[in-house]
């Protein structure tokens, strides 16, 4: 799974394989969830914890919007993920979430928020790109080489797809299809990539 930031847009790209070691259990597993109009979250790791953690964050954001009367901002949400993970410090969720969102800083100006976490809540927010999952090291190489600043949504799609596909082909535990979620202030676009079905 990889998340990348562009100019006023962010994207998360993921594969859809769910496996138990070498056995493929599901070839169409959903890992990326929409939190609100300005934030998406991708979760990699243990399948059951992916789904539980998503439900938990949904619960917390619903409560937040009832209390505050507005949608949660991307930056705040990223911190909420961190504290939620730390609540289970001594019996953690076996997940590596990736949060991608846009924070409004002015009229038409959005600050991208890209965060990666370990399973107990350390938040890494370098701002450019973050990787997670079994193909993390493979993705690091690709992203370092292909990433550039201030990409538009179309270019961001090309770059992130390239990175994911190259890494997917080398990692035996990832594959069976890929989706790219591109978030701009106006819309969330989901595109499916044609990959090797192995």
């Amino acid at each position, binding site marked *: 799974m990889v998340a990348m930031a562009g100019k006023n847009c962010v994207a998360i790209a993921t594969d859809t394989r769910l496996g138990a070691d070498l056995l493929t259990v599901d070839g169409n597993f959903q890992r990326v969830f929409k939190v609100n109009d300005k934030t998406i979250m991708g979760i990699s790791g243990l399948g059951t914890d992916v789904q539980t953690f998503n439900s938990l964050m949904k619960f917390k954001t619903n409560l937040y919007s009832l209390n505050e009367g507005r949608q949660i901002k991307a930056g705040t949400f990223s911190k909420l993920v961190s504290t939620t993970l730390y609540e289970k410090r001594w019996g953690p969720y076996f997940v590596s979430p990736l949060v991608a969102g846009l924070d409004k800083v002015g009229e038409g100006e959005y600050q991208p928020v890209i965060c990666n976490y370990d399973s107990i809540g350390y938040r890494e927010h370098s701002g450019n790109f973050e990787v997670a999952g079994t193909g993390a090291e*493979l993705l*690091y*190489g*690709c992203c370092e*080489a292909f990433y550039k600043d201030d990409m538009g949504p179309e270019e961001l799609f090309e770059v992130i797809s390239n990175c994911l596909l190259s890494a997917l082909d*080398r990692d035996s535990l990832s594959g069976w299809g890929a989706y790219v979620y591109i978030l701009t202030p106006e819309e969330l676009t989901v595109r499916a990539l044609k990959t*090797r079905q192995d």
Partner: protein
Amino acid sequence: ENYTQVNIFKEVFEKQQAPNNQSLITHPHKTIGNENKQHGQFNPYQMNNGTAIAIAGKDFVCVASDTRISSGYTIISREYSRTTQLTKTALLTAGGQVADIDGFAKDMQMKVKVYMRQHRREPTLETLARLVCTTLYSRRFFPYYSFVMLAGINSEGTGVVYGYDVFGSHDTMTYGFTGSGQSMAAPLLDNQFVGHNHLVKKPAENRQSVEEAAKDIINSIAERDIYTGDSIELTILDKNGVTVRHEPIRRD
């Protein structure tokens, strides 16, 4: 069934009980016979890390490696050369333990000299490839801790890369990678060159773009891998000879 009653076995059986009576707990001063235990912990292998990639072109090969060697989290040297030229048409490079990389390279140089005495010409790349394989296998039960790649120009004039594992099993490739940064190099090389996923593999055409790509790849790896950095040693072999260049990169 009761072999403690049979005399010869009884003796052996009772002899084996004796060492337990003199354990270090009851006899802390009795260290004779225990020195070997401490030396038995000696580990002859250590990993000195670093990354190397090799790319085969239509009539040239390009080998790019970083020049850092480390032991654990310490840097031992920033100017170590991993690549050696064996013949006019072959380059040897490796990742892993420096003692074994150097030892193996010296071994191969010696074998090339012997070959030249016997045959009065240099070995071809295919012959050298087989020679590397058998040399590695000769140490099957105490292997060279070096992940070797042989890059060169074969007898048809095309560039080829041979990749080996520690015991000598090998295959021809259009590009190869080894070392601590290999998982970061793999998808980049797949993307830029025709190799891994393709039925028909094609060596690279444009020499300039191969050099640029090799430098960029090692640079990208140095950003994320702690064991890669300091400088890139770019070695290019073609029919005119060998050129070696050093380019400094991040030293952190």
